[in-house]
């Protein structure tokens, strides 16, 4: 996820650098021959200095605006990413979606609709109880259940892959319900088109 955010940064930096280069132009212009000293030339010099100051201010404002926009986009991306990749959880030996899981999927639905190029992979996981082999199938069913929820609400089938890790990839190592409940989950990973996520509309 961090890697994907970082990929956004170089583009922004380029834009900022380009703006900076525009603002710098007057400074790099060749200095003209000093004219004979008179009021006109003093006024002209003052006007020139004012003009330089205004350009400098414009440059600063533009940089600040670019920075603010970059910050806003980054925050929007981060929030959308967090929503889209938040795990959902299941009851023991069940692939049924709880109200909480459905609400989380609804939020993901908004993000997926706002970002039509984004593709995801849903990975189903189980707790350590149950047969290792049966749990692979249970994890597959959990992933498929979440995918079905999204595709039935208009997300294209081709945008979502599913995979099961069964009980092979626990996030909590304990052997009690607090660990098991964290491990009975679907994880959501962006597999494409996730460089700059927009918020749900």
């Amino acid at each position, binding site marked *: 996820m961090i890697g994907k955010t970082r990929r956004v940064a170089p583009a922004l930096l380029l834009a900022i650098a380009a703006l900076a280069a525009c603002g710098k132009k007057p400074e790099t212009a060749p200095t003209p021959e000093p004219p004979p000293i008179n009021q006109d030339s003093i006024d002209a010099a003052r006007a020139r200095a004012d003009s330089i100051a205004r350009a400098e201010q414009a440059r600063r404002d533009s940089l600040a605006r670019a920075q603010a926009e970059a910050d806003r986009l980054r925050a929007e991306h981060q929030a959308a990413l967090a929503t889209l990749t938040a795990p959902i959880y299941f009851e023991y030996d069940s692939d049924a979606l709880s109200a909480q899981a459905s609400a989380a999927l609804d939020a993901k639905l908004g993000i997926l609709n706002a970002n039509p190029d984004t593709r995801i992979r849903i990975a189903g996981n189980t707790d350590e*109880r149950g047969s290792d082999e049966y749990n692979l*199938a249970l994890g597959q069913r959990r992933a498929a259940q979440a995918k079905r929820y999204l595709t039935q609400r208009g997300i294209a089938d081709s945008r979502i892959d599913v995979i099961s890790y069964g009980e092979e990839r626990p996030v909590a190592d304990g052997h009690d319900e607090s660990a098991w409940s964290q491990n009975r989950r679907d994880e959501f990973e962006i597999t494409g088109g996730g460089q700059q996520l927009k918020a749900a509309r």
Partner: protein
Amino acid sequence: MSLRICAAAAAILAAAALPAHAQDTTGQRGVRIGLTYTPGSKPGVVVLPVDGPGGDSVRAIVGRDLDFGDRIEVIDGSGVSQPASGNGAVSYGIWKSLGAAALVQVTLITPSLVRVAVHDVTAKKVAQSRDFPIAADVGSAAWRMDVHGISDEVERWITGVRGIARTRILYVKGGRVYVVDSDGYGERAVTSSGTALAPAWHPDGHHIAYSQLGTSGWNVEVLDLAGGSARPVTATSGGLNTTPAFSPDGQWLVYAHGAENGTDLYAVPAFTGGAARRITLGRGTDNVSPTFSPDGRRIAFTSGRSGHPEVYTADFDGSNMELLTPFNFGDQNYRSNPDWSPDGRSIVFQSQLAGLFQIMTINLRDRSIKQLTSEGANEDPSWAPDGRHVVFTSTRTGVKQLFVLDTESGRSRQLTHSSGSRLSAWSRYLDRAP
């Protein structure tokens, strides 16, 4: 009764499996040599010291194999002052006083040939003798297997039932498939990297199948243990392809395939792959872990079609399905991982009791259930080819390890000693390469 049928079946199997060079044997083949010992007890047997290179190892391996077979009481003869070795130097009286019914005498004739004689202590004579070819490189994997083969034949001479020492066990540890000899020696990894699960033997004893995690899901691969690269055989790409099982004739591979509407069993030609034939119609439920009846006509498998996992049986084409494990025992509705016994008469499986899996067998004739384990969590049982021993995963010593249980005596031994070993599969009898 069951023992006698077992013995007869094993003898027939053994006779069919014997390579051509073993035909010129003396005495009776496939029939026990008729030792005298207390009925109902195990015959006492002494493995005499073996002279020559590797002799001590031969004696140790044969003694351990006979002990692990659970049909023979191995008597430690090392304290006896006049150990007999060499032909004609056996003083039977000493051994009889130690309770021995038989002596096993191994003589190294050439680096690649050993003579094995079994002495009947009561009759004071050699009851059976045969020369065995043996790999010349003492201590090598092939040499060890040849010694195991000797143990198995000696066990057959004495008890009428072929031993199971010349077998191997597949299992998973740290995402890789391993193989180990039946006595726990010779462990080696057979897959190099990644995450593999559910290893299974082909009946030829040198091909295996397992499920390997790739970027888009799990695929079933077939690997020749003698070398070469793994071949994917699942036609249904991506998604979940796991729990492979070969048919007894070696022609078919049945596995579980799941995508977005449950997981069902499919069959493909074992080596060529090709169009998958669907076996179960689970309607969105999970159907995994198939195992074949010895005649190849029926399969047993785990299915969640009733709302929780139970063991079912069906014809190979999926018809005539029936629930095998009833709900009215145990305190939790979770039974899975069946393995059909080599004699076809029972199925071993795991059932959850008080939150932990235990190993049980169900008799296919009267549906009687026998619980075999109670200490720790015990899972993934697999029959030895003698239909008497079972290998399984247990947490009884803490982390998951493989154990071997003698279902008749209840005696068990720890097979692996590196943590996280699981999902074991016992091979058939492994015959010597011709």
